[in-house]
C-alpha cells in the first residue's frame, strides 16, 4: 500500500497547469471556447470575409473607357456573363466538370468498394498508398508528365501503334468537338488529366461511406430475395450516396475552379478558372472576374439542394 491510499481526495497537482486543469474540468465550455476561437476567427474573417469582399466586387462595374472600377451597385457585370463568349466558357466548364465527376464516380466506386469490403491488412495499406501517392508529387510535374504522355509523339501514340490500334486513336481524335490534332490538345486530353488529378478525392469519401455499410445489410437484402443488382440499387448505392456526393463536390468544384490543367493540356478555349485569371490579371476587370467566381458557388449550391431534395443525405 502506498501512502496515497490513506486519503480519499488527492491534493491538487502543483503549479499553474494543475490549477488550469481543475478550471477546465469545472467549466468544459471554457476549453471549447478557447479551442474554437482561433479557427473560427480565421474562418470567419480571413476566409469567408475575403470571399464576401470578392463577391461584393461582382456588383460593381468597370468603366470601359478609363478601365477604372465604378463603385456603384449594378447587375451589368452579371449581364455580361450571359454574352455568348462568356456563356460558352461557363457551359464548357460545367459540362467538363459534370463529365469528370460522373466518370470519376464510375471508376472510383469499384476501387472504393474493393478497398472497403475485401482489402485487409497489407492490401489496405497498398490501397491507401496507391491512392495517396499521386497526391505527394507536384501538381505541375504531373500535368506536364501527362502532356508528354498524350502528345502526338508521346508514349500513348507509341503504344497504340505497337498494338496496331492507331486507327482507333485516329478515330477518337477525328470525333467532332472533343477530338483534335493530338490528345494533348483536345478536350479528351483535358478530361483524362482532370480525372487523373481529382480521382483520389472521389475514391476516399466513397470508400469511407462504403466502410460504414454493415456487411450483413447486403446479406439481409440477398436473404430477402434481392438479386445482386437489386441489392446494389436499393441498399448499397443509397447508403454510399452521401460519400459519392461528398466526392463529387470535390471533383465537380475542383474542376470548375481549375485554370492550370486546361491551360497546359487542351484546346486553347477558356474554362471559368482561366477566365477569372485573365480578367483579374491582364484585363484588370476585377468585377467580371468576381462574377465568374460566383458561378461555381451558385452551381454547387443548386447541386447540393437537388441532392438533398432527392434524399441523398437521408442515410446520414
Amino acid at each position: 500500500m502506498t501512502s496515497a491510499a490513506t486519503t480519499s481526495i488527492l491534493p491538487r497537482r502543483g503549479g499553474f497547469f494543475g490549477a488550469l486543469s481543475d478550471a477546465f474540468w469545472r467549466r468544459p465550455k471554457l476549453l471549447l471556447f478557447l479551442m474554437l476561437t482561433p479557427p473560427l476567427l480565421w474562418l470567419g474573417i480571413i476566409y469567408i470575409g475575403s470571399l464576401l469582399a470578392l463577391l461584393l466586387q461582382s456588383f460593381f462595374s468597370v468603366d470601359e473607357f478609363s478601365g477604372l472600377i465604378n463603385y456603384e451597385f449594378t447587375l451589368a457585370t452579371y449581364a455580361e456573363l450571359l454574352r455568348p463568349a462568356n456563356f460558352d466558357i461557363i457551359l464548357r466548364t460545367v459540362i467538363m466538370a459534370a463529365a469528370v465527376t460522373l466518370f470519376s464516380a464510375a471508376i472510383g466506386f469499384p476501387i472504393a468498394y474493393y478497398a472497403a469490403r475485401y482489402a485487409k491488412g497489407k492490401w489496405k495499406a497498398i490501397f491507401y498508398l496507391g491512392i495517396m501517392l499521386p497526391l505527394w508529387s507536384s501538381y505541375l510535374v504531373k500535368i506536364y508528365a501527362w502532356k508528354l504522355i498524350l502528345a502526338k509523339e508521346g508514349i500513348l501514340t507509341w503504344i497504340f501503334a505497337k498494338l496496331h490500334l492507331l486507327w482507333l486513336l485516329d478515330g477518337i481524335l477525328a470525333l467532332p468537338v472533343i477530338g483534335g490534332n493530338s490528345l494533348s490538345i483536345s478536350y479528351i486530353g483535358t478530361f483524362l488529366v482532370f480525372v487523373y488529378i481529382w480521382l483520389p478525392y472521389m475514391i476516399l469519401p466513397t470508400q469511407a461511406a462504403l466502410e460504414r455499410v454493415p456487411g450483413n445489410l447486403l446479406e439481409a437484402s440477398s436473404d430477402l430475395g434481392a438479386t445482386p443488382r437489386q441489392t446494389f440499387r436499393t441498399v448499397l448505392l443509397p447508403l454510399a450516396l452521401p460519400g459519392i456526393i461528398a466526392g463529387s463536390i470535390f471533383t465537380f468544384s475542383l474542376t470548375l475552379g481549375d485554370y492550370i490543367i486546361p491551360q497546359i493540356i487542351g484546346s486553347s478555349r477558356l474554362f471559368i478558372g482561366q477566365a477569372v485569371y485573365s480578367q483579374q490579371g491582364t484585363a484588370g476587370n476585377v468585377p467580371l472576374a468576381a462574377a465568374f467566381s460566383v458561378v461555381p458557388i451558385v452551381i454547387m449550391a443548386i447541386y447540393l439542394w437537388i441532392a438533398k431534395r432527392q434524399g441523398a443525405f437521408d442515410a446520414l
Partner: protein
Amino acid sequence: MTAAVEFQNVSRHFGQVRAVDGVNLTIAPGEFFAMLGPSGSGKTTCLRLIAGFEQPTGGHIEIFGETAEGVPPYRRNVNTVFQDYALFPHLNILDNVAYGLMVKGVDKATRYREAEAALELVKLPGYGARRPGQLSGGQRQRVALARALVNKPRVLLLDEPLGALDLKLREQMQEELKSLQRALGITFVFVTHDQGEALSMADRVAVFNNGNIVQEGTPEEIYKQPKVRFVADFVGSSNVLAPDVMKRLGGEARWASLRPEAIRLKPTGEGVPAKVLQASFLGASNRLLVEAGGAKLHVMLPADQAVPAIGSDIALGWGLADAHYMDDAA
C-alpha cells in the same frame, strides 16, 4: 415425409479451420429446432449454410427435398432474422418489412397491405412510418421478424435473435416466438449459445462442439441423459464428476452427471459426508456449494428446507438412477 432441412456429411472448411466438419442433420417440417453450442462450435456456420451465405466445401444439403448447394440466397425460400437485426437504416419500418415483396415485384398496394399485416402479427401496428433508429432493441427485433415472415418462408432461420435483449424482454419474446411458430406452422431453426433458451423453446436440440453435433434429442433427453461430458458441462448446471470422484462417492469409476436437485440431505452418519462451503439464496430454492469426495458439488435445496451453516459437516444421498454415466469424449 420430406425433411425440411437435411445435411448429409456437410463440411465447411475455411483454409485450415474446420468450422463445420461432416455434419449429418435432419430437421422435420414444422419443427422448432435449436442449434446449441459455444461460440466457434459451427452452429452459426450451419445456419449460414441453410441460408446460402456460405457454400459447403463437402457434403450435400437439401431443403424440402431440393438440392441447395450452389443456389444463391436470393433463390431460397428461406429467410433469416439476424443477430443484430440488419434493418435497412435508409428505409422506414414499412419499407423494411415490404422489402422482400418489393424486390420480387409485388405491387405497392399489396406489399404495403401485407407488410402492415406482418407488423400487426408482431404487435407493432402503426409503426410503419418510423425509422429503425427510432425503435428500441425489442421493437427492432420484432420488425426483423416481420420482415422475414412477410415472405412466407418455408424455413425461418434465427441467429441468436434474443441475445441483445434484457432478461425480461427475452423471456417474453421466447414465449411469443414459440406461440408464433405454433400458429404459423413454419419450420424454425434457431441458433443460440444460451442453453436455457434452447431447452425452453425447442422441440429438438442439437448440441454443437468443434464443428460437429455431439448430441441431438428432445430438451429433456439432452438435459437428463447427456451422452458425453461436453453436453453435461455445457447444458444445465449439472455436477460433472470424474471417474475417481465417482469411485470415492461409492459409484462406478466412470464419468457421471449428477443434477443438483437430485441430491438430498441425509441424517449424519448415513450417505456421503460433505462440508458446506457456500450457500446462495435463489428465491424458489437455495443452492449449496459443498465438498464431497475431493470434488465440489452443487446441491439444490427446496426453499422450505433449513439451510445448514457454512463450514458445517453434512451428509448427502441420491438415488442410484440419478447418477447418469456417460462417455468421456469432449
